C-alpha cells in the first residue's frame, strides 16, 4: 500500500477511542465520589473516592431481587434460544417440501421489529395468563432469526463426508445430530448464548409492558425507576449504572471473538 506516516492514524483513533470512553470514565468517577451532581466546574480526578454509593444502591432498592429476575429470565431465554435455534437451523440444512416457504417466512419475520408487535404481544401474553411471570417475560425471545441462520451456516460447513461416514456406520438421523453435528457447532452455540444473553439482559421495553408487580421487574426497569425516584441527587444512580453495565462489559471482553463473529456472520447471511 506504500509508505505513509502512521502517527496521524494513531492520533485519529486515539481521539475516537477517547470520545467513546469518556462517558464511562465520567460515570465511574461520579459513582465513587458523588461530585459533579451539583458542582461546577467539574473536576477531572475524583476527590475522596468512596465505595459507599454502591452499598446505598444495594439497600435502597431490592437490587438482589431485580438481579435475580434478570438472571432467571436470561437463563430461560438462553436455554430456549439455543435449543430452538439449533433445531430450526438443522432443519434448514435438509431438503424438504416447503423449505422455500419456510425460508421466506423467516426472512419476512426479520422485517417485523418487536416494537410493532407490542400491543398484540401484550394481549396474547395476557390471554395465555403469562403476564408478570418469568416465562411470559422470556417467551417472545425464545427464538431469533439471526441465530437460526448462524446455526444453519455452522451446520452447512460440516463436510458432507463426515455425515455420510456416520450414516454408513449405521447412525440414525437423531444420533447424527447429537453425536456428530452439535459438537462441531460449538462456536455457533457460543455466539447464540452471548447474543441472546445481551438482548435479554438489556431488554427494557418488553419487561416494562409485561410486568405488573414491582417484584418481577428486571434490572433495566429497576434502573429507570431509580432514576425517577432518586432524581440524580447522589452518586447512587451512577453506581447503579456501573453495577448494571458491568456484566455486559465483562461478558463482552471475555467473549469478543464470538460476539463479533456472530454479529457479522448472522447479519450478513440475513
Amino acid at each position, binding site marked *: 500500500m506504500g509508505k505513509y506516516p502512521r502517527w496521524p492514524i494513531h492520533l485519529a483513533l486515539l481521539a475516537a477511542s477517547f470520545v467513546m470512553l469518556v462517558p464511562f470514565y465520567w460515570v465511574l468517577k461520579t459513582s465513587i465520589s458523588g461530585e459533579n451532581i451539583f458542582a461546577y466546574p467539574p473536576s477531572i480526578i475524583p476527590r475522596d473516592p468512596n465505595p459507599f454509593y454502591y452499598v446505598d444502591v444495594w*439497600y435502597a432498592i431490592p437490587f438482589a431481587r431485580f438481579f435475580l429476575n434478570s438472571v432467571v429470565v436470561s437463563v430461560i431465554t438462553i436455554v430456549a434460544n439455543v435449543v430452538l435455534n439449533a433445531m430450526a437451523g438443522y432443519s434448514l440444512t435438509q431438503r424438504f417440501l416447503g423449505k422455500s416457504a419456510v425460508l421466506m417466512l423467516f426472512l419476512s419475520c426479520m422485517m417485523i421489529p418487536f416494537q410493532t408487535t407490542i400491543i398484540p404481544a401484550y394481549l396474547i401474553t395476557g390471554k395465555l395468563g403469562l403476564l408478570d411471570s418469568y416465562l411470559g417475560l422470556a417467551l417472545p425471545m425464545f427464538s431469533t432469526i439471526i441465530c437460526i441462520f448462524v446455526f444453519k451456516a455452522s451446520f452447512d460447513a460440516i463436510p458432507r463426508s463426515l455425515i455420510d461416514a456416520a450414516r454408513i456406520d449405521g447412525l440414525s438421523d437423531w444420533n447424527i445430530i447429537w453425536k456428530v453435528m452439535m459438537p462441531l457447532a460449538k462456536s455457533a452455540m457460543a455466539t447464540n448464548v452471548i447474543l441472546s444473553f445481551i438482548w435479554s439482559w438489556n431488554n427494557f421495553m418488553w419487561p416494562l409492558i409485561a410486568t405488573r408487580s414491582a417484584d418481577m421487574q428486571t434490572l433495566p426497569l429497576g434502573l429507570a425507576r431509580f432514576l425517577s425516584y432518586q432524581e440524580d441527587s447522589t452518586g447512587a444512580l451512577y453506581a447503579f449504572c456501573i453495577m448494571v453495565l458491568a456484566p455486559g462489559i465483562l461478558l463482552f471482553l471475555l467473549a469478543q471473538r464470538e460476539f463479533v463473529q456472530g454479529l457479522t456472520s448472522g447479519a450478513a447471511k440475513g
Partner: protein
Amino acid sequence: MNDEDISRPKWKRWLLNRFVLVPAALVLITVGWNLWVVTHDHGIVEGRVVDAAGAPVEGAEVRLWVFNFATFVVKASTTTRPDGSFEFADNPSHNIQVSAEKPGTGRSARVPIRLYFASEDFVLKDPLRLTDGS
C-alpha cells in the same frame, strides 16, 4: 479449540479455559464475600467518648441515628461506661451516625459512619469528643 495445545491433558485444558476460570473466580469471590458478611453482621457498633481535654467521660448519652428515606432518626441510645466506651447491638442499617451528649460537659458532632453492608460490626476509630459546655 484449535488454538490450544492438544498435548495438555484434557482436564487441564478445560480448567484453564477462560469461560471456566472467570465464572469460577466470580463464584469463589461471591461465596467468600458472603461468608465474611455472615460472620460479621451482628450489628455491633463500639466507640469511646472523651471530653475536650481527652479524658474519658462516663455516663454520657450516646445516640444511634439511622438513615430513613431522607433523614436520620434516632434508633437507640445508651450510656457510656466508666472508661468512656459504649456499645450498640442490633444496628440494622448501613448508613448511620452517632452522637454523644452529657449535660454539663458538652455535646459532640454527629459522626457519620458508612458501612460496607448492613449491620456490619464496627469500631469507631476516633473517639467522640464533647465540646462546648452545656
